[in-house]
């Protein structure tokens, strides 16, 4: 086992009956890494997590963890923790008993057990809630119990399936920092699923973007945000002007368009609204819509290239609806896409 592959998925194929949900997935994760699985609904995130945990038998391929082949090791022998989106706390047990559940199964008793449970509760700030039942806790508190319950087991990998999606905006931010802190303190290898690109960018060491049961791109948050490899990822992280390239020219709804600068070699180019130059340039458009977003203003332009979204600093004077504007899509700023779908 090399350090770069503490957990590795090799040609992993997962299916429900005859429907393949994940096909030929390869992924290597380092020890102590915090990975975000990002992708649209139905792309196979939960399916992949369940296979890593051993809750879903694999169709073909392998799951390796810490040097051992886990593919056919039953879920209760894997040392993989999973925090469910629904928390899945045991309703008949107190917070304390919930956290103690797995430790007791390991045979831990008495003072050892108590010390471990208390430490677990303390780490998520719930020491004073030990005797409550799950039903008597708020969503965020239940979430923290679920986290503590998995963490005290000292799993080799901790999986979190949309851990923050049931929480309100303020609590999400709070739990985000909490997750990061716990991960840094314990050094546990963590994979969390999210729909929210901002969450993935803020938390993860690396982001895995999935699409239709396959990995579309793996990279650092900077890579994913600045250098999406495909139109799909570009779209997912907020590039709104995306065009295929053909022989150095942009294929648009208005035909093939010559760029202002030298065309790079790629399958496509993408610009964030911020990257569009307004006021000068070879192209012309009409303002169809405008929206004010605090420190910036966004324009929707009708152009011979099709609709273009541009964003400028709000301090600049506003263009009225119907105004004719010059603009440019500078080739040197564009993200180069090697895959266009």
């Amino acid at each position: 086992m090399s350090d770069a592959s503490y957990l590795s998925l090799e040609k992993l194929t997962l299916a429900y009956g005859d429907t393949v949900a994940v096909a030929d997935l390869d992924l290597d994760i380092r020890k102590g890494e915090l990975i975000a699985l990002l992708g649209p609904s139905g792309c196979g995130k939960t399916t992949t997590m369940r296979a890593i945990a051993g809750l879903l038998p694999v169709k073909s391929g392998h799951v390796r963890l810490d040097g051992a082949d886990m593919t056919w090791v039953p879920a209760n022998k894997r040392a993989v923790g999973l925090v469910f989106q629904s928390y899945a706390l045991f309703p008949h047990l107190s917070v304390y008993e919930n956290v103690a559940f797995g430790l007791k199964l390991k045979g831990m008793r008495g003072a050892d057990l108590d010390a471990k449970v208390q430490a677990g509760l303390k780490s998520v700030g719930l020491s004073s809630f030990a005797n409550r039942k799950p039903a008597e806790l708020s969503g965020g508190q239940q979430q923290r119990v679920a986290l503590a319950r998995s963490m005290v087991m000292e799993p080799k990998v901790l999986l979190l399936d949309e851990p923050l999606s049931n929480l309100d905006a303020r609590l999400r931010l709070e739990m985000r920092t909490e997750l990061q802190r716990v991960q840094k303190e314990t050094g546990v290898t963590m994979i969390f699923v999210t729909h929210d690109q901002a969450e993935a960018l803020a938390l993860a060491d690396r982001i895995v973007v999935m699409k239709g049961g396959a990995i579309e791109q793996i990279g650092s948050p900077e890579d994913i945000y600045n250098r999406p490899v495909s139109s799909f990822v570009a779209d997912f992280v907020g590039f709104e002007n995306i065009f295929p390239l053909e022989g150095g020219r942009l294929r648009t709804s208005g035909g093939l368009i010559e760029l202002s600068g030298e065309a790079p070699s790629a399958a496509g180019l993408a610009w964030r609204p911020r990257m569009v130059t307004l006021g000068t340039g070879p192209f012309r458009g009409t303002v169809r819509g405008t929206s004010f977003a605090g420190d910036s203003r966004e324009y929707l332009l009708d152009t011979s290239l099709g609709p273009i979204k541009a964003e400028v600093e709000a301090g600049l004077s506003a263009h009225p609806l119907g105004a004719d504007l010059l603009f440019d899509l500078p080739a040197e700023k564009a993200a180069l896409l090697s895959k266009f779908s």
Partner: protein
Amino acid sequence: MNARSLFIPITLVLVLGFLIGPFLIIVAASFSAGETLNFPPQGFSLRWIAKVFTVESFQASFAMSLFLAIGGTAAALVLGIPASYALSRYKLPGAEIVRTVVSAPIIVPGIIVGLALLRYIVVPFQVGITLALFVAHTALVLPYAVRVVSASLDNLRSDIEEAAVLLGSSRLGAFFRVVMPNIRGGIMSAFILGFVTSFNQVPVSLFLSGPGVRTLPVDMIAYMEIVFDPSVAALSSLLAFLSIGIVFAAERFLGFSRYV
């Protein structure tokens, strides 16, 4: 007060009177001092209540009814809990058919169930009376067991079992550690419902009772055909109060009404 506002209270009194009235008559009749079952009762005495405990056949049939109610219901639960679990957790191909078959004894009149069991099982296979009664009562209680236990299983999320497995429990262990404790109320409710159903069961038992082996209700009918004294009323009152006591205790301790 106008006629309209009187309508509801009057209806209520009539309905309650209709439901509880006969019961009150029986209770009153059991304290009679007279020799025959009569209403209004003649005088007041506890002699018929006392007599209930001296009739030997009542003792034997009470024991038989108790055995059937407890044993039959327990057997129905042993079969019904795994069945309910399978029905609610797995998408089995014939699940709906299984549900229907299991509920059949509720829908089919008892007299037909009794006759069918007698004609096609007890007689051809020479099954003993006690065993036949036991099997019949188990089958009769099974639908209630499956229905009530299923209801509480459906209210329980299945991901807690997966959570238990990931914390080191086996699948079976997860069932006993996190499923059973959370459906305990449903199981107790099913037990009480099954017990009462079995204990009050007449038509099926009537067909299957044989020489010397009778359930209490069948025995009471047989007794009344020979002796028409108030002891049957006394026994009925005792049984009614016993049932009421059980249901109140169940509601008090288990929240019985949540499951039925």
